[in-house]
């Protein structure tokens, strides 16, 4: 691809050991690029969507709702209401005369049909422009139906996905703060998990570890959560934050308002899983739990390492490219690949922060390409240039990787197996192996028609 190094992009890419060590990030994509970046609404929706018993009503034209209908594999142990797609389906006359009446009616319709405890109303770009007063409508509807109806200001163009995370956190805060009854006292050894969405049942894995060592998981924000559970958020004595990009803001707020300290943890890869468990134990400071956790770590490792070693042996010398949403996940993945004997030669994120890029820079080897947001052409160049055998990315990257004859793993909504904790590390190793070492790649170059 010619003329690739478009001026504005230069600030967003660097190669370790070659150029200066900071890069521009968290900016908006330039006009005319094939960007992978999503919008505010997308950010808000992915964070709140796993709340299972809520109506998620998208106020806008149909598309915004269609594309987000049940696309995230967050599992529920109870209600399934969140897996429907609700839209006000704004039409031309609504654009001209405003969509407020339609929104009110849609809320009425849905509440009478489903009797939900909670409705989220998301605004999309167009609503920001036609100027519907979501706040007022939700308030009125809330009074009328006697349930909580929370507007999420997520007009797509006012920032990017991170702004959507923020809008979602604001919504959650409203929910948490609105307490009809006095909040019960904090419970010992009880914690909240923030920033896990129960993709492929991952929340349940973490929950099981915690329960085994005597810690109670109060609520997960938002994987497999419900209205009632979220209300109980303040009784936890500690918050642990998994996907920091989306939830650090909420963690800060909960610390301010409810005096709940938080820890950043990551259950991706064995190294980080162990470190996280120990961090939690230390923070709780309970002797028994510390002991239990050490026991759990020992037991799980005994099971897991042989599996990892088996695959490590087969994967020795392979090279990986990582392009994920958040910086924290990228960091964990670099470590996890190291456990598998795989070197990460390309790392990029969509919403990584300056500090995270710094850490990434420290972790990787000389010559590794680091970038913020990218387009397919760039990505292709990097992959070919660096000879990556595997790409870890999102939906749109999969076919690109395949076309290049590069193996692929979805570490996003389309993941098929749980990738967290010890069992997740095993799954990950298996998945890496099954894609990198699949015989299908051989068919590309050794077709019967070529000699």
């Amino acid at each position, binding site marked *: 691809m010619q003329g690739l190094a478009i001026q504005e992009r230069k600030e967003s890419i660097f190669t370790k050991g070659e150029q200066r060590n900071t890069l521009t990030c968290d900016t908006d994509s330039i006009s005319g690029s094939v960007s992978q970046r999503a919008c505010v609404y997308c950010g808000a929706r992915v964070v709140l969507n796993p709340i299972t018993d809520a109506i998620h009503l998208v106020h806008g*034209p149909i598309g915004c709702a269609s594309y987000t209908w049940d696309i995230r594999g967050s599992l529920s142990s109870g209600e399934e209401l969140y897996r429907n797609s609700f839209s006000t389906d704004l039409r031309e006359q609504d654009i001209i005369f405003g969509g407020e009446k339609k929104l009110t009616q849609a809320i009425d319709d849905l509440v009478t049909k489903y009797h939900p405890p909670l409705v989220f109303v998301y605004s999309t770009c167009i609503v920001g422009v036609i100027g519907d007063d979501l706040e007022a409508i939700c308030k009125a509807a809330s009074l009328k139906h006697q349930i909580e109806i929370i507007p999420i200001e997520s007009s797509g163009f006012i920032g990017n996905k991170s702004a959507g995370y923020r809008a979602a956190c604001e919504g959650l805060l409203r929910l948490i703060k609105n307490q009809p009854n006095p909040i019960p006292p904090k419970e010992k050894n009880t914690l909240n998990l923030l920033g896990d969405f129960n993709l492929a049942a991952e929340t349940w894995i973490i929950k099981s570890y915690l329960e085994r060592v005597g810690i109670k998981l109060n609520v997960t924000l938002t994987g497999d959560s419900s209205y009632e559970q979220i209300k109980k958020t303040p009784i936890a004595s500690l918050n642990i934050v998994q996907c920091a990009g989306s939830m650090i803001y909420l963690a800060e707020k909960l610390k301010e308002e409810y005096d709940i300290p938080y820890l950043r943890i990551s259950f991706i890869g064995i190294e980080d899983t162990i470190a996280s468990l120990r961090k939690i134990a230390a923070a709780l400071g309970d002797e028994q739990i510390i002991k239990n956790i050490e026991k759990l770590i020992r037991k799980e490792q005994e099971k897991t390492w042989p599996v990892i070693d088996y695959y490590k042996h087969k994967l020795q010398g392979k090279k990986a490219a990582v392009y994920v949403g958040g910086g924290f996940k990228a960091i964990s993945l670099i470590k996890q690949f190291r456990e598998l004997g795989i070197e990460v030669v390309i790392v990029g994120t969509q919403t990584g922060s300056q500090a995270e890029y710094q850490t990434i820079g420290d972790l990787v080897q000389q010559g590794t390409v680091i970038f913020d947001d990218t387009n397919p052409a760039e990505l292709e160049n990097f992959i070919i240039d660096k000879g990556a055998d595997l790409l870890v990315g999102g939906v*749109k990257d999969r076919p*690109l990787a395949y076309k290049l004859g590069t193996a692929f793993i979805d570490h996003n909504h389309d993941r098929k197996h749980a990738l967290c904790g010890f069992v997740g590390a095993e799954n990950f190793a298996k998945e890496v192996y099954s894609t990198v070492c699949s015989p299908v790649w051989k068919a590309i170059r050794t077709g019967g028609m070529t000699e």
Partner: protein
Amino acid sequence: MLDGTPKKIIERHSGGVINPAKTCQPIGAMYAALGLHGCLPHSHGSQGCCSYHRMHLTRHFRDPIMASSSSFTEGASVFGGGANLKTSIKNVFTIYNPDIMAVHTTCLSETIGDDLNSIVQSAEIPEGKIVLYANTPSYVGSHITGFSNMTKGIINQLAESTLEEPKEQVTILPGFVNPGDMREIKRIVKKMDIDYVMLPDTSGVVDSPMTGEFVMYPKGGTTVEEIKDSGNSQITLALGSFASADPANALDKKCGVPAKVLHTPIGIKATDSLLMALSKSFVREIPYDLEEERGQLVDIMTDTHFHFHGKKVAIFGDPDIVISLTEFVLSLGMKPVHVLTGTPGKSFENEINKMLTEAGIEGNVKAAGDLFTLHQWIKNLPVDLLIGNTYGKYIARAEDIPFVRIGFPILDRSVHSYLPVVGYKGAIRIIEMISNALLDRADRDAKDEDFELVM
């Protein structure tokens, strides 16, 4: 969720949608633009929309889907998106270097009121490059409307009539169908020994072969030369009125190519009509190969009709596809008792109702409907089979109905975009899909004593 749909039908006042059976215009426009050779579709709006459309198409076709975005920020919503589009045009040709950039609008740029024509006119476009555009407000119509609007835009901006006499050539507007379908239609036209221009033609673009190399602009797609030449054709065959009638009329208006609107050639009758139209317009005999295929289809229909007869079917999806599918299942002796599309349009209801009346079937028919409504219908009048896109799987599971996936999008199965549902071969394939679904179910549910080897 699945049992969250109540059986009792209460009228909804808001006109809001629960579980949509349509999506927005721009994705259709993007798909149409992908059917031009060397074209980069461009979404004039916020980056989120573009991201969603690419993701959705990627999931359906399992191929890289390229498209750029104007990436609106707050300023654009106040001052208009003209500057963003001009910058985009510059950047797109510098970075991605397509032959054509095909711009469509989104809700946002439409609401702000950006005037594409004047923005494009005043933009700097590199020598030899083309910028096409179409207005695709999502609050009107559906993705099918967007497909139609982009196709119309392409014709209006590029087609030319340069000859005194029209060429012995047909312009085929295939509508919003898979590349596998477009290939099949082309094969049929070739077999008839008729020159053609197909517009758009996504075969070779979104079903491109694996070469170990990523090609930004794969081999397929209608070329600029071909698009221009579409104005010299003797006739336009518009397959599917919703996706293709408007652009066909535009070509008539601009270049005087008469338009004939046919059904999407799904099923025996619609395929017959296509062949008859070709044969009449170009005075061609139907070649034996095609006669043979038709004969095979009829043979299969008779061999299997007892599996189908009297079975109740619910069909939903895009209007052109659903109209033809309804016609086809009727010809198999099935009863399409619930027929629904998300796309608005009275003509859909009229056409289906006419078919049902002729067949003496009473059924529910609705345009601008949603899957909540369809599910309620099914709860009140159960069916033996559901045909539609991926989103039908929730209903199929809740009601335990055999389910055949046809349409857009299909996100949970692969290969579908490579194989046709159009033409006689496509009809044979549909019969195979339907009978496999029904018979697999019969096997699954049979008691030991009823479990049969030969069916």
